[in-house]
C-alpha cells in the first residue's frame, strides 16, 4: 500500500466564527489532479493555504509525504510543494528570469557551487518560462507585465521549484481562452506531478481534474472522482443556480442558466 502524498485527518478550517470546512478526510495520491470547487468565499483559498502548510488548520492533522506537516522544516517543505497564489507583489524592478530562478532558493547551495550550477538554474528557468509560453518575456521587468503574463510567470516559477506537489489558486483566472487551455494542458503533461487547484471555471475543472472537492462554505464538503462529483445536480445545489449540460461537438459543457435550482 502506497503512502498518500497528502492526507487530511479531520481537518477543520475556520474564518473567524464561521466554519469553512469541518472534519475533512481526504487522501491524495501521487499523480492525481484535484480541483476545489465552490462559491465565492467558500474557503477554497483558505483550505489551499492550510494544505500548503502556510496556515494552521483549526483542527485535525495533515500528513505530507507520510509525515505530519508540522514536522517538516520550512526548507524541506519548499522541496515538497509549491504554491501559485493569485496575487503578486513586485515593489522593485526585477527581471522575469530572475523571478523564476529565485523560486529555486532551496537549491541555492548548488548555486554557490559555481558557474555550471548557475547555468543549470538559468536553463531550467528558461525552459519553465517556455512551457508557460513566456520565453519572450525573460528579460522584461515583472512590474510591467499584464496580469495574464504575470500569472504565467508565477506558474513557471512554481514549476522551476521542482516539487512533487503544486497548489494552484485560480491558476487561469487571468488567461485568455487559448492560454487557459494551454496552461492546464502543460500542467497535465507533467504526469509525475500532483496538483490541487482552486478553479472557478467548472468546464476547465472537469477537463483537468481526476478528483474534485466541493466546498459549500458552511463546513460541509463532498470529495471523490471528478466524474462522480462534478454532476449537474451537485453543482446546481452548490452554486444555488441551475446548471445543465449541453453537447458541443463531442464535448459536454456545463452551462449556468441563471434560473433558480429545481
Amino acid at each position, binding site marked *: 500500500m502506497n503512502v498518500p502524498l497528502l492526507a487530511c485527518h479531520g481537518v477543520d478550517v475556520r474564518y473567524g466564527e464561521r466554519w469553512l470546512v469541518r472534519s475533512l478526510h481526504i487522501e491524495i495520491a501521487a499523480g492525481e489532479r484535484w480541483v476545489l470547487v465552490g462559491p465565492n468565499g467558500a474557503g477554497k*483559498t483558505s483550505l489551499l*493555504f492550510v494544505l*500548503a502548510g*502556510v*496556515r494552521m488548520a483549526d483542527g485535525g492533522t495533515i500528513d505530507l509525504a507520510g509525515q505530519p506537516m508540522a514536522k517538516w522544516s*520550512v*526548507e524541506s*517543505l*519548499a*522541496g515538497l*510543494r*509549491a*504554491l501559485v*497564489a493569485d*496575487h*503578486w*507583489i*513586485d*515593489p*522593485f*524592478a*526585477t*527581471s522575469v528570469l*530572475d*523571478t523564476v530562478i*529565485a*523560486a529555486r*532558493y*532551496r537549491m*541555492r547551495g548548488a548555486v554557490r557551487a559555481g558557474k555550471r550550477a548557475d547555468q543549470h538554474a538559468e536553463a531550467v528557468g528558461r525552459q519553465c518560462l517556455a512551457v508557460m509560453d513566456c520565453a519572450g518575456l525573460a*528579460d*522584461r*521587468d515583472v512590474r*510591467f507585465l499584464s496580469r495574464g503574463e504575470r500569472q504565467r510567470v508565477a506558474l513557471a516559477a512554481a514549476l522551476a*521549484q521542482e516539487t512533487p506537489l503544486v497548489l494552484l489558486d485560480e491558476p487561469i483566472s487571468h488567461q485568455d481562452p487559448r492560454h487557459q487551455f494551454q496552461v492546464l494542458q502543460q500542467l497535465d503533461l507533467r504526469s509525475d506531478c500532483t496538483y490541487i487547484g482552486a478553479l472557478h471555471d467548472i468546464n476547465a475543472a472537469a477537463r483537468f481534474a481526476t478528483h474534485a472537492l466541493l466546498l459549500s462554505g458552511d463546513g460541509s464538503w463532498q470529495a471523490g472522482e471528478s466524474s462522480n462529483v462534478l454532476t449537474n445536480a451537485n453543482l446546481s445545489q452548490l452554486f444555488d443556480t441551475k446548471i445543465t449540460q449541453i453537447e458541443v461537438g463531442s464535448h459536454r459543457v456545463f452551462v449556468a442558466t441563471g434560473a433558480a435550482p429545481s
Partner: protein
Amino acid sequence: MELPRLPAATALRILVAGALLALLAALRFGSVGVSSGALLQALLDIVQGRDEPSLAATLLALRLPRALTAMAVGGLLALSGALLQALLRNPLADPYVLGVSGGASCAAMLAIATGLGAAAIALCAAGGALAALSLLFLLAHRALFARDAALDQGRDSAILLTGVMIASLCAAALSLALAVAPDGKLRTMVFWLLGDLGGAVNPGMAGLAVAGWLLLLFIGQRDAGALNLMLGGDLQAYTQGVPTTQVRRRLIAVTALATGTAVALAGAVGFVGFVAPHLVRRFVGSNHRVVLPAASLLGAILVLLADTIGRSIAAPLQLPVGALTALVGVPVFIWQLQRP
C-alpha cells in the same frame, strides 16, 4: 521599460574607488588645504613612528577620525534604509520617515536641555532611536510578522502609517522642546537636529564606528538572498523555503542597531538612508546581494562629501552635514528620476 544593468562587480569597483577618492578629498580640503604628497609623508611618518609635528600630520590626526566617522554614519544609514525599504516593500521607507530620527532627536534634546555631556547625548540618541523603532514594531507587530496572505497587501501601509504617526508625535515634542529651551542651548540643539560631525575627533571611536558598520553590513548581507524572495511577499517566500519570521527579526535588529549607532555618532543626518538605495537600484537592479553593499558604500561617499563641503565651502564656518546631504542629494536624485 528596460531594466538597469550595470554589472555588479563594475558598480562595486566604481563605488570603492569613489569612496577612496572622497576620503582623500576629505583629508586634503578644509579650512586649510594640504597637498596629497604632504599627507602621504605625514602618514609614512606616523607609520614609521617618527614624531615630527608637521601641519599635515596635525590635520591628518584631526580629519581622519571625522572622515571615517562620516563614512560609517553614511554607510549605516544607507544600510538601514535599504533594509527597511525591502522589509516593508515600500520605496518610501527610511529610518527618518518612520520616526526613528524623531525618537533619537527627542531623547537627545532632553539630554542637551538637562545639560548632559556629549557622550551622554550620543547614548540618549541611540536609546531614543531604539525606543522609537521598538515602539513601531510593537504597534505594527501583527502586520509585520503575520504570514496571512490578505495581510501581505495591507501590511506595508499599516507599518508606514504607524511610523509616520510616531514621527509626527516626535516632531511635535521637538517643537515644544525648542520653544521652551533656554537661549544658550538653542544653537547646540539646532545643530544637532541638522546632523553634526564636529564631535568626531576620537580615532578609537572612529575605528569602532567603521568596524560596527562593516559588521552590520556583513550580518545583513547573509540574509540578502532571503530578502530578495521576501520582496515578493512573505507568503511566497515562505513557500519557497525562507523562514520569514526569523529573517525579519534578524534584519529589524540590524536596522535598529545601525540607525541607533549612526544617530549617536552624528545626530540626525536625514535623507541618506532614503536616497542611496534608490540611486543604487537604478544602476544595479533589485538584487540585494548587490544593493546592500553598494547602497552602503554610496551612503558613505555621500555623507563624507557633504561633510567635506560643509567644512570647506564657508570656512571657518562649519555647515551642518545633514543640510548638505540633502542639498547635494536632492538635485542628483531628481536628475536621476528625470532620466528616461
